[in-house]
């Protein structure tokens, strides 16, 4: 564990972090260790987000740094670096809504938190949710939506999952612009999460 690297990244020092990673690699450092340190840094970033020390731009910046690190070290790693994933989460923006910024951040945070995340995109028709859930068999489904029109899309999506007999084995969380606990009741989801860390915490609670 390289505390200096972890702290540089957790403090979002992009240039310094990437230059240190380059140096470490040049000096024969283990790429897997670097990735592991990056994950530790992301945990700190997530905690700072939870305590309102960090905000969305910080998550985006952390994402950029992580991408920069991956670009340097991934080519040096033989085979699959995937540490055992904790569980499957499927996420998408519901029919009629084309917003993706929030959904992308949630996907990113779930991914770095060790979940196997399948993002099926924006304006996803109800039937596509049903089919993809049948194929992927996630434990958790995240329904994203920014506008009020998403209320009914979410409701219909949940109903379709009930009809397809998939609902009992799933936890469903909703999030995005106009969502709140009123909407959760209306669409009959299991939980509403106010941000990306809330989504990660819900998955921790449900999957581990």
């Amino acid at each position: 564990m390289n505390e200096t690297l972890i702290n540089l990244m957790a403090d979002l020092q992009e240039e310094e972090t990437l230059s240190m990673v380059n140096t470490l690699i040049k000096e024969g450092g283990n790429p897997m260790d670097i990735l592991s340190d990056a994950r530790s840094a992301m945990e700190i970033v997530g905690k700072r987000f939870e305590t309102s020390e960090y905000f969305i731009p910080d998550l985006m910046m952390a994402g950029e740094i992580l991408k920069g690190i991956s670009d340097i070290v991934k080519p040096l790693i033989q085979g699959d670096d995937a540490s055992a994933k904790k569980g499957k989460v499927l996420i998408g923006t519901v029919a009629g809504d084309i917003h993706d910024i929030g959904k992308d951040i949630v996907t990113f945070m779930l991914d770095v938190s060790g979940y196997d995340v399948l993002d099926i995109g924006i304006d996803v028709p109800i039937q596509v949710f049903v089919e993809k859930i049948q194929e992927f068999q996630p434990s958790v489904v995240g329904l994203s939506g920014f506008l009020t029109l998403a209320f009914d899309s979410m409701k219909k999506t949940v109903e379709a999952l009930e009809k397809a007999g998939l609902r009992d084995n799933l936890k469903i969380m909703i999030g995005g612009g106009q969502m709140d606990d009123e909407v959760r009741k209306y669409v009959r989801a299991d939980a509403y999460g106010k941000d990306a860390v809330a989504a990660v915490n819900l998955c921790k609670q449900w999957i581990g």
Partner: protein
Amino acid sequence: MGITPEELFKEREKRVLDAIALKKPDRVPIMPHFSFFPTKYSGFTPEEVMYDPEKLWKAQWKTLTEFEPDMDNSPFGLRFLGPLLETLDFKQLKWPGHGLSPDVSYQFVEGEYMKVEEYDAFLSDPTDFMLRAYWPRIFGSLKGFEKLPPLRDIITYSIGTAFGFGVFGSPEVTAALDALKKAGEKSLQISQYSRLFAEKAREAGFPMQYGGYSQAPFDTLGDYLRGTKGAMLDMYRRPEKIIKACEKLLPIMFEVAVNASKVSGNPRIFMPIHKGIDGFMSEEQFKKFFWPTLHALIVALINEGLIPCVLWEGNCTTRLDIIKDIPEGKALYGFEATDIFRAKEVLGNRVCIRGNVPLSLLATSNPEDVRAYCKKLIDIVGKDGGYIMDSAAGFDDAKPENVKAMFDFTREYGVY
């Protein structure tokens, strides 16, 4: 003898202006942003009203006359956009019948419409950048303008003139000029309907809320030029550039508001806030990147005799102490998910507050819950005036009985 429409007009305008001046009106004013609600309420689809001005008129008029808000908005500038945007092949929106199904509202397409390396071009000559790089990118029909030389280079017979105009004869530029002409016709049609609607509403006793539109410079940059992600990352990677760009946009955002207000004769300027809300940046970033140019804009508009009507979208509770710093009784702050009761404590003696019946309540709950929420708003935020009842944001999907409950209750219970 009943009260005449002219008297009603004055009464309604006074009610709102009294609230803005932090006085106690005869009752709590109510004025929502109806957004696409009138469309569904009248049995039309969003696609229909975006292309058919008569249907749009009918829907808005029905809603206006049945709910009788203290002020309304002409819907044409933000709804009757189909033919114009189609002509321009506009890329920044998807709308019903153009990338989206007929029954949903239009939505913005996020993008990096100004690239990182274009900051300098924008800073040195925004008009040139807009014409030759930005317009061709956001208006497909104006792609030909990419071929234009900087027009500032055409100076006299010996500099620029002889060869500079040649490009205007090229097929690409000619096509773009043709598209501009067609767009001009569609645009004029929107203006005519908009003006006529305001006139007819006035004759019926209803003032318009807004006479112009502006934005925080950071929002213009982050929404339309750099994109959300671009603007957020720029705060770390090129902080000086983003501040310079906001400063460059400040006089432009002032100018668009002043010019629109001159044409409409209405001093109220709508300013929705997007990227400065809680969660979207830290307090430090808000103070450094967002607030300085927004604050300057608000103060400049007030000094010009205009009334900034700022809609603080999302949750802005942590910003209250900062945004308090504006002249007293000269603006209107609408709130969406901000703790509006806290807002009353912090801002109550500084700026009129508006809001914030949640859209989720209007769309999914019942009249009883709506009345209970409105009661709390009137009791606490409405205390001693300086408050306007409104939904949390413009609403598309709301149960008519819930909207009616919000209006009826405010008129009955909101009397001072």
